[in-house]
């Protein structure tokens, strides 16, 4: 490490003092520094990066962070010897690494929270891509999570750059889109394909698959061809000839019984529309990189739908999908095989939400032109004295009119609670109407 405790450096008139070392990665050293008031993390590159890299880093700092989930570079620092780095915020200790989730050390509180994290992840990439950036080097080390509330942090944002502009690191095998691993020719330039939003989208689907199924979508039977998994084996499995483990066209790479146990357990429990979204990306999307990879908007819709239709089994306390979007409704818990007796469905337009205490309503439920999939505006609560009475506590600015099955109407003032009663019709606003259905 090149900096020591109490070393100082000055940028734009502000002096930063090194408090201690936070870590060391392949590219650089990270220190905790203080400007006297606030603390920051300082990433100091081991080797002096090229002028393109420096320019891009400064550009990213100027353009600003696309979303609060990105631990975005805040200030560029360059020393007299041209060595450089950047300052960023310090990651709060509430967050654990995505890897430690994968290894079973830090599981999410429940499936709802896991999906909330997935939605936050996809939303972040949507915002990044809307700005014309691509992340480029998505891998298991890029993400952090709060297992209790599904909040996300994205680190290592210094490789983020404009589409198809690459600054050296193409990515990490197992997470990269295969055309980038192989170095296929770009349709437009005729040169080596560089990472862009489309390769990001492929990697994003891998991260989602890892999150939901705890396994890599391209690691199955064919692992048996490799006694030792070295870079050549990885090139074969994840670059040269990847085969999706649940491909309908090629069943030669299914998960291995007794080895890929988590995938074999979790994949069958996914809703069919999530399976289809993965299938499209991991089969057709291998070749048709522009139009067969599930986009962020599609993921947001599907993942919110998944979260909406979760129900908690009253017997074992685990969540599963009731499956009103499936061919067959599933009233038996796949975990404990008990029947679920009661169901309470709120229908708003095309959206159907299974209500149960703790469930949230989000902006998109009431406004389909909204792009806020994770912004909670209501919560299902229980009456303190009579827990069998449920209601929806909404945080909206307008009054809400409800009508029961006998035609009695009632106005619920803003911040009031909407009672959850069978056949209750709810006029959320002039254009949005919902109905409760108990089954």
């Amino acid at each position, binding site marked *: 490490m090149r900096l020591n405790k109490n070393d100082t450096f000055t940028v734009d008139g502000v002096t930063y003092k090194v408090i201690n070392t936070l870590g060391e990665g392949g590219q650089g050293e990270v220190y905790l520094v203080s400007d006297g008031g606030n603390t920051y993390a300082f990433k100091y590159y081991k080797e002096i990066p090229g002028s393109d890299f420096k320019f891009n880093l400064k550009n990213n700092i100027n353009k600003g962070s696309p979303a609060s989930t990105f631990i975005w570079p805040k200030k560029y620092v360059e020393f007299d010897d041209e060595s450089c780095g950047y300052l960023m915020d310090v990651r709060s200790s509430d967050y654990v690494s995505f890897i430690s989730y994968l290894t079973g050390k830090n599981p999410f509180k429940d499936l709802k929270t896991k999906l909330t994290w997935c939605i936050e992840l996809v939303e972040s990439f949507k915002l990044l*891509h*809307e700005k014309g950036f691509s992340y480029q080097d998505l891998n298991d080390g890029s993400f952090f999570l709060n297992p209790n509330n599904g909040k996300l942090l994205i680190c290592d944002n210094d490789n983020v750059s404009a*589409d198809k502009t690459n600054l050296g690191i193409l990515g990490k095998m197992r997470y990269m889109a295969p055309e980038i691993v192989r170095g296929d020719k770009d*349709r*437009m330039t005729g040169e080596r394909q560089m990472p862009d939003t489309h390769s990001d989208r492929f990697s994003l689907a891998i991260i989602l698959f890892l999150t939901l199924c705890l396994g890599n979508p391209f690691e199955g039977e064919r692992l048996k061809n490799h006694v030792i998994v070295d870079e050549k084996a990885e090139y074969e499995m994840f670059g040269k000839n990847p085969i999706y483990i649940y491909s309908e066209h090629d069943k030669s790479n299914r998960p291995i019984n007794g080895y890929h146990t988590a995938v074999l357990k979790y994949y069958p429990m996914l809703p069919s529309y999530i399976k289809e979204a993965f299938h499209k990306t991991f089969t057709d999307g291998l070749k048709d990189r*522009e139009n067969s990879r599930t986009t962020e908007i599609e993921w947001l819709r599907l993942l919110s739908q998944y979260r909406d239709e979760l129900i908690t089994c009253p017997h074992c306390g685990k969540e599963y999908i009731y499956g009103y979007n499936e061919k067959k409704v599933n009233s038996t818990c796949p975990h404990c095989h008990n029947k679920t007796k009661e169901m309470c469905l709120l229908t708003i337009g095309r959206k159907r939400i299974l209500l149960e205490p703790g469930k949230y309503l989000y902006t998109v439920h009431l406004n389909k032109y909204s792009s806020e999939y994770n912004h909670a505006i209501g919560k299902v609560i229980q009456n303190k004295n009579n827990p069998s009475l449920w209601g929806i506590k909404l945080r909206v600015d307008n009054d809400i009119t409800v009508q029961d099955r006998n035609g009695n109407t009632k106005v619920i003032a803003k911040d009031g609670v909407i009672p959850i009663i069978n056949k209750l019709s709810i006029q959320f606003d002039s254009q949005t109407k919902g109905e409760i259905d108990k089954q």
Partner: protein
Amino acid sequence: MNNTDGIKKQKLNLVFVIDNSGSMEGEKIGAVNNAIRDVMSIMPEIQDDTSDAEIAISALTFSEEAKWVYSEPKSVQDFIWKDIGTDGGTNYSEAYDCLTKFFSKKENGGQMPDFGGVAPVVILMSDGMPTSYDWEEHLDKLKKKGWFKAALKYALAIQIDTKEAMDVLTKFTGNSETVLKVYTAEALRKVIKVIAVTTTKIGSSGDLVKDGNAIPKNEMMQAEVNKDLSDVDDVEW
């Protein structure tokens, strides 16, 4: 689209006008490609919601020259977006000429129906730096077209920070409120939806555009959309 159920659907033309000149290189063209793909990914849903009109999509790219991506408007299923790259100058003049022709009746070589029809939606995406000096003259010609007048015109400002550049876009839309600095596909959806709603309200063909003039209802609708879109503008980045 099949019309076997016998209901004659009206065409709702959605036209993307995309600046892919050299100045758009990098994040800018990335943002444009992404925006169109995002809109396309919710388009099937919009078409489902829009039972009365058949959405037809066209895309015009312009740099040194202006070029239609498809030679004629495509349905939601058939319009496949392939990312475009950047190159050359910013020939607004030629782009406007192409649009002028597009907004002519079929018999005059354009894409507009001879009678009836729904106001088109035109979305210009640019960083607003023309390299052709006479672009305003060409725009004036375009503005004489009734269909263009009737159209809901939006411009997505791609990383614009000068007033001059902003003016280029404002002149196109005729209104600074319809030049959007921040936009999401979900919000753009509302633009298209409003037109669809207009058609259902009017019910029969021929009313919306009369003698090349848009009826006031259309303006009301536009005001409503702008209100929603301005909410999006308030989002902090």
